[in-house]
Structures are given as C-alpha cells and as structure tokens.
C-alpha cells in the first residue's frame, strides 16, 4: 500500500509541470499569438474575439489558473478552425490510436519474446548475433519509410492488404483488422527491436543467478527453467521500460496514422499543426503526456503485482 500511495503522490508534481509546459506552448509563439493564428488580414473584431477567447488580455498567472480550471473540468477549449470542443475532437480520434497501440504492442511482443529468449539462451552463437544485428537494423529503419515499403510491396505491387480505408471496429471488424495489419507491422518492427534488446540483456542478467541453478538442480529442463523461472524475473525491468516505450510509440503513430490515413489522435495533431489550430495542438499534447503518465503509473503498479517484494516494501 505504501508503495502505491508514494507512487501516486510522485505523479502530482509531474502533472502540474506538464500542465505548465503545455500552457506555455501558446506563449512560445513569437510575437502576438492571436495575430499569428489569424494572419494579417483578420478583422479587428475577429482579432479581439480570439484574444478574449484565449484569455490573452489577462495577466499570465491568471490565464494559467483559468485555463487549468477549465482543463480540470474536462474543457480543453474550442478548436480555432473547427469551432468544436477540442475534447470532442480528441475523444473521436483516440479509439483508433488505442487500437493501433495495442496492435503494435502485440506485434512487437510476438517477435521480441521468442527472439530475445533465443538470443539470450544461445548467447554468443550465430542465433544471438543474427537477432541482435537484426534488432539494431530494426531500430535504424525510419518508420515512415518502412511504411512506404510495406505499402509498395503489399498494396501497390501485390494488392494483398489495404493501405488505407480505416473503418471503426464496431462497424466492420474484418475490414478494420485488415486495415490495421500494415500499420501495426510498420510501427511494430522498431518497437520489437527495442523490446528484444531489452529482453535479451535482462535475461542474460537473470540467467546466471543462483536460483536458476537451483531450478536446474531440481531436474527442470531448459525450456521449463527459462519459462518458469528466468522469464518472469527478467520481465520486471522490461515491463518498467516498456512503459517508457509508450511515449516513443505515440510519437511514431503520428507518422503511421498520416501515411495510412487513419483518423487517429496523431493525425489530429499533424492536421492541427498545419491548420495553425494551436488550441487543438495544445489539448492534444496535454492528452498525450497524460496518457504517458497514466500508462507509466499503471506499469509501476503492475510491477508490484509481478514482484511480491514490492508489496512488502522491501527491496527495489
């Protein structure tokens, strides 16, 4: 319990700072934000209206608190270009992104788990070198280029899978899943490479521990030893870092969604950036940071479930 309370308390300053940083974003616009957003041709009335809407005529501290008050009640402001609440825009776009995130993670795990285990168990052999080198390669491929190559091969040349045409899962599950395969592949390769490297080094550390020898001395075979005793211990640091992976993944999805025309959260950010809809940009990055903080919190709590030593308040 102490661990959970402590962990929750630690989140508060992070959330406050995240909100300050997000708030400051609009004020980083060089010159007068309202002028930059509207352009030079805007009427004085429209200009004044936007200034009032953004609260730019009040002192900055007051602006922050009134913005923060709205945020806490779920109001992220109105989109400058679409004139709808930003929160609605975001909640429309999130499901596709969440689906992509889960799909990508599953894809990454399916590759990384066996590859990482094999590389660690057969370490310093060709299996290890090949998979470690492949992982380094996977980390080096630009996401968006991989997405294009995948589209050229699977869609343009062979027409096996669609490269666009996202439909919500609730409308047409089959079409939805078909449209998700390529995006998950294009984003998941890099994530699987990162995951595989982490898993390998974590496994190597655990594999030489005393209790692993005990397990073998009991008569367990290699497979049972690795799956029953090594893997779970090795997963502890991996789970922790895979929480951090979520941040990289959300960033990567910005590009994936743009290429595969998936109306997700990342694409919303890109669209808003080009439409100079800074209120939506602001709301969206706040939500993205919030997602990262929440996922990391959940991961740390999960950590306490995996490792019984945490609950007792002992050890790290």
């Amino acid at each position, binding site marked *: 319990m102490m661990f959970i309370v402590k962990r929750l308390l630690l989140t508060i300053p992070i959330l406050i700072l995240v909100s300050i940083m997000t708030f400051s974003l609009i004020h980083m616009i060089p010159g007068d934000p309202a002028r930059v957003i509207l352009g030079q041709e805007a009427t004085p009335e429209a200009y004044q209206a936007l200034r009032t809407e953004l609260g730019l005529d009040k002192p900055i501290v007051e602006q922050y608190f009134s913005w923060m008050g709205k945020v806490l009640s779920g109001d992220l402001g109105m989109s400058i270009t679409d004139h709808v609440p930003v929160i609605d825009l975001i909640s429309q776009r999130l499901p596709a992104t969440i689906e992509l995130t889960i799909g990508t993670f599953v894809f990454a795990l399916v590759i990384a788990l066996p590859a990482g285990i094999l590389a660690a168990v057969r370490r310093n052999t060709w299996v290890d070198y090949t998979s470690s080198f492949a992982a380094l390669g996977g980390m080096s491929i630009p996401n968006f280029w991989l997405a294009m190559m995948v589209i050229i091969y699977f869609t343009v040349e062979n027409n096996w899978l669609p490269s666009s045409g996202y439909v919500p899962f609730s409308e047409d599950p089959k079409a939805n899943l078909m449209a998700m395969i390529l995006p998950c592949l294009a984003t998941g390769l890099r994530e699987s490479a990162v995951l595989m490297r982490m898993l390998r080094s974590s496994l190597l550390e655990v594999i030489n521990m005393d209790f692993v020898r*005990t397990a073998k*001395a009991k008569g367990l075979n290699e497979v049972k030893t690795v799956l029953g005793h090594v893997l779970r211990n090795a997963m502890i640091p991996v789970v922790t870092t895979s929480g951090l992976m979520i941040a990289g993944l959300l960033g990567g999805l910005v590009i994936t969604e743009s290429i595969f025309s998936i109306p997700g959260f990342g694409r919303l950010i890109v669209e808003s950036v080009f439409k100079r809809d800074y209120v939506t940009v602001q709301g969206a990055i706040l939500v993205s940071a919030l997602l990262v903080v929440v996922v990391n919190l959940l991961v740390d709590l999960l950590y306490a479930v995996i490792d*019984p030593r945490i609950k007792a308040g002992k050890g790290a």
Partner: protein
Amino acid sequence: MSAILEVKQLRTRFKNDRGKVAVVDGVDFSIRQGETLGVVGESGCGKSVTSLSIMRLLPQNGSSEGHILFEGKDLLALSEKQMQSVRGNEIAMIFQEPMTSLNPLHTVGKQIEEAVLLHRSVSKEDAKKRAIEMLKAVGMPRPEEIYGEFPHQLSGGMRQRVMIAMAMACDPKLIIADEPTTALDVTIQAQILELMQEVKERTGTSIMLITHDLGVVAEMCDRVIVMYAGQVVEEADVETLFEDPKHPYTIGLMNSIPELDEELEYLETIPGSVPLAHQMPSGCRFAPRCSKVMPICHEQAPELMELGAQKCRCWLYAKGEE
C-alpha cells in the same frame, strides 16, 4: 556396504581466452550407501566444481571427462534428458547461498512442489500435501502458512531449511550439500547441521558434504577426502584423519583450527596460496607451500598411495618402498 557413487579419474576443464584449464584433475572417490562423505579444502581447490560436475550443471564453458558412476550408470554418458530425471530425483543439491538460491517471485511451497510434480506422477493436491509435509519435516513452524510465503519473508536459516525440504522432496539417494552452512550465523549453522543429520538417519540417504570447515567435518562425516589444487591429496575415515593426518597439507589445515582447550600463542597458517589452475607446478602441486618439501617433490608428481585404510598423495610415504 556398496558404493552409490563412484567418481573415477574425473577431469573438468574450463575454456577461457588462454585455452582449456583443468580445475578438477584426475579425482577419484566413492560414496557408500548411507554414508556422509566430507570434501574438504580451501576455496578454489575444485570441490564445488566437482559437485557441479556430478550434477552436470557446469557453466557453458566447462566440460568433464572420466566416469561418474551413480548406482553403476555413468552420469557423464547420459543424455541431457536422462540427466534431468536424475537431478532433484535421485541426486539433489543444496547450495551455499540460501538468500539467492530461491526464486524471489514464487512461493516457497510452489518451489518445493515443482520438484515433486516433475518427478512423481501425483496430483496437485498430493504435491501440495507433500510440500507441507516436507516443511514440517525440516522443522518449520506453521508449515501451512509458510507454504504460501515468499522467500523474502523468511530468514536465512529458514530459507536453508526450505532448500533442504526441496532437496528431500523426492527422497533422493544422494544429497550434495555445497557449504550449506557457510552463509549462516553460528547458532543457525548448528541447527541446520543437526537437521541434516536427522534427515540422514531417518531416510538413510547418502550425503556428500562440501565444506572448508573441519569442525563441520568432525561432527557430520563418516569419511573425508581432502582436496588440493584440483586433486585428492588424502582420504581417510574421520577418526583416522583427525588422529593421524598424513599429508602435510592436511596437517597444515588441522593446525590452522584454533582449539578452545589449548592456549595458543599464535595460529598456524599455511604459507602461500593455492596455485592458479593454468600455472600448476610441475611436480607435487603442494610443494611450493610444503614445510617438508624434498627434491623429488619438485620433479615428479606423486600418486595417491594406499597406506592401510588411508590414502595419501605425498612422497614422504613412498620412501620405504624405494
């Protein structure tokens, strides 16, 4: 009494950057049914490697030659799969570090149960019953509760009891205990030794007890082998060894134990240290540290010679025959 384990010309080598290095070099000994054999020596003399060789649990870069006959079958000739049905079932092992030898993420009960489920065709409930029974047998208070506890909730002595329970779970014919009490407090040490003695008397299992502590040997063992630099230098039953040690190294070891009833001016130690495996002296391996060294010792390596019921690897006792 027949021998349950016979080790013949065991040679275990490790590969490193410089090539292959023999850490155990031509070791012979046997353990009889129901006997406790002590294996004594300084750290680095190859006693732990010998035990890991028997279990075939050497690190990847280690390999053994020779014969390890367990009830007549050569363990070194078994397939890995056959060996798995020996480990934990016919031969069990207890390790030195109770703090790190148990999996921190599994309950104590599950870890004992695992061995039972692996080697006996029993139901989950029966395995659980067996695990609790074992915990009771090793003197655990509240065995039903301990069954569901994690290693970090137990003290070092308790964890070593769990290790013993785990080792005994399948009624092995031989238990190899590698310094089982070294990491424990002195009072706990005595309790654990007593427990092992009790287990042995009750089940009739043989024990190979590896230790550097001659006090433990005197208390526990029937017979003793003394190892030095990867070889057996002396073998005797425990009374003979303490009354009439032959090898200068054994004598040195004996003299380095402080005795309570003696007023010692100083504690004797053996000068120098165990030679490294890749730079063994050409003659007797103990010669550079030996107080009774003779010219022949530097030239030719002595064999393990039989002196009545005792065996000794030293030129001092070959004189008469020449």
